[in-house]
């Protein structure tokens, strides 16, 4: 009898797991259950749909034909309950799906703060295609929007709303943008661009309550008692892994579903991967979450292989994200945190990694050239993190140098000697490493 695999979640972790299972188990019966009534789409691409740079059709990167070719059945439905003893998954519509191996790749959802008025029409998060469609619909008649939160998602919301001609106010609890990850100069570069786009920044303010009229948001009242009238309030204060299914089934959970580096959970026949997995790092003894597309794919690849019988372990590389923040192409690699506490995020945000805020025994050196900015976080014998804004020539080699923990002993003095030496020292390091060589 072919083995029955059920995957909950039609995101990058779930789909990549299905591909992996198929590679290793030709006769497997593979089913993906996804709660959204859409084919697979690029979640990070929602930001570009919101700004209007691409049409919605661009987001659908895997047509249904791909699923057929892969021999994977895609069911639209919401998983309601896991019956672990019977090895069955029950959907909200009553369907019962027996499984031999189950993967929970259910992702994370945006957190809504307990502020009064959050239930009003016009208050939105930025999680899904449905959220994005609703925001676009609202911008057709909205005059003003307020954005609260931090990280990349809040910025993408502010830029998207402004691009659609809505007067946009960005309310920050901190004194500058994303102060836990960016240094003061980097925050200033981003803020300048936001102001150029017509976005109004409010610093060190907190939302006291959301004011509504006939069920719709009409204003946000700040702790200063000042009110900003608005028709849209977009919230991006962090995400929360969807642990309910696992929790109700009595599995081990914390912030996410607990896994080891092979994506096993506390149930030997259930695996978890992607944004929902809170993995134990055997080296540090700590558990960690990530909210990155490429990480979710790698999780899925390994989890799928292990479900089909392999014994692979995830080797957590220095996480990275490259994206436009405030219109400036920016790469974040490894431990770049500033040590400041997080003002605008309650939890991990999208496109974010806890590892960025790890405080290692290291210090930062900075080199700026015009609009181009480079910050290296230099440890004892290796570079532990980097921020590359603007010119991306160093971004790819640095990704390699940091991930592979390349020894910098011989060039360290030059790297830390000052801004003038930094770029040259780095160029020498890259040449020696050979990481500029074509792949």
């Amino acid at each position, binding site marked *: 009898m072919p083995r029955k695999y059920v995957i909950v979640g039609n995101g990058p972790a779930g789909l990549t797991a299905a591909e992996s299972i198929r590679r290793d188990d030709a006769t497997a019966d593979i089913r993906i259950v996804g709660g959204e009534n859409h084919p697979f789409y690029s979640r990070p691409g929602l930001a*570009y749909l919101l700004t209007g740079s*691409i049409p919605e059709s661009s987001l659908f990167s895997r047509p249904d034909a791909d699923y057929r070719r892969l021999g994977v059945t895609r069911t639209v439905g919401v998983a309601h309950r896991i019956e672990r003893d019977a090895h069955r998954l029950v959907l909200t519509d009553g369907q019962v799906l027996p499984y031999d191996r189950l993967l929970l790749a259910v992702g994370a959802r945006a957190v809504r703060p307990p502020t009064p008025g959050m239930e009003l029409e016009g208050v939105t998060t930025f999680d899904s295609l449905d959220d994005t469609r609703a925001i676009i619909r609202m911008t057709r008649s909205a005059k003003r929007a307020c954005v609260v939160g931090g990280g990349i998602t809040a910025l993408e919301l502010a830029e998207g709303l402004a691009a659609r001609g809505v007067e946009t106010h960005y309310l920050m609890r901190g004194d500058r943008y994303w102060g836990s990850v960016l240094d003061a100069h980097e925050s200033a570069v981003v803020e300048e661009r936001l102001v150029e786009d017509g976005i109004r920044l409010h610093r060190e303010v907190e939302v006291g309550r959301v004011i509504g009229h006939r069920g719709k948001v009409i204003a946000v009242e700040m702790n200063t008692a000042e009110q900003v009238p608005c028709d849209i309030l977009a919230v991006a204060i962090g995400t929360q892994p969807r642990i309910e299914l696992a929790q109700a089934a009595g599995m081990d959970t914390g912030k996410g579903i607990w896994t080891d580096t092979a994506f096993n959970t506390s149930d030997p026949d259930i695996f978890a991967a992607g944004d929902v997995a809170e993995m134990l790092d055997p080296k540090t003894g700590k558990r960690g979450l990530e909210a990155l597309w490429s990480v979710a794919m790698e999780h899925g690849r390994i989890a799928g292989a292990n479900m089909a019988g392999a014994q692979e372990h995830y080797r957590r590389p220095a996480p990275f994200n490259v994206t436009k923040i405030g219109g400036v192409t920016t790469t974040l690699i490894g431990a770049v945190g500033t040590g400041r506490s997080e003002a605008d995020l309650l939890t991990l945000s999208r496109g974010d990694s806890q590892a960025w805020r790890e405080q290692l025994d290291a210090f930062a050196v900075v080199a700026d050239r015009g609009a181009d900015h480079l910050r290296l976080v230099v440890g004892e014998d290796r570079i532990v993190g980097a921020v590359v804004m603007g010119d991306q020539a160093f971004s790819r080699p640095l990704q390699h140098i940091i991930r592979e923990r390349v020894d910098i002993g011989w060039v360290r003095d030059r790297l830390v000697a000052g801004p003038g030496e930094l770029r040259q020292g780095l160029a020498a390091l890259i040449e020696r490493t050979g990481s500029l060589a074509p792949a």
Partner: protein
Amino acid sequence: MVSAMIVAEPVRCVECGTCTYNCPLGVDVRGRVRQGLQISSSGCLTCGECVARCPRGVLRFEVSPVFLTTTRGN
């Protein structure tokens, strides 16, 4: 003569489709990146639209082997 080709680094890609959407020839750049297929063998003119517009730095120009051979005078 083709003097450069476009190469990709799939691990940076988030499948947003900006490259494919902006390709004047309608090459499915995103699909090729994911499947590890060469973009140069798709009829690509190396106009650079996809390189310039990719918000994630997935794509870059690289001097093609054809060009290297020619300049070396072989």
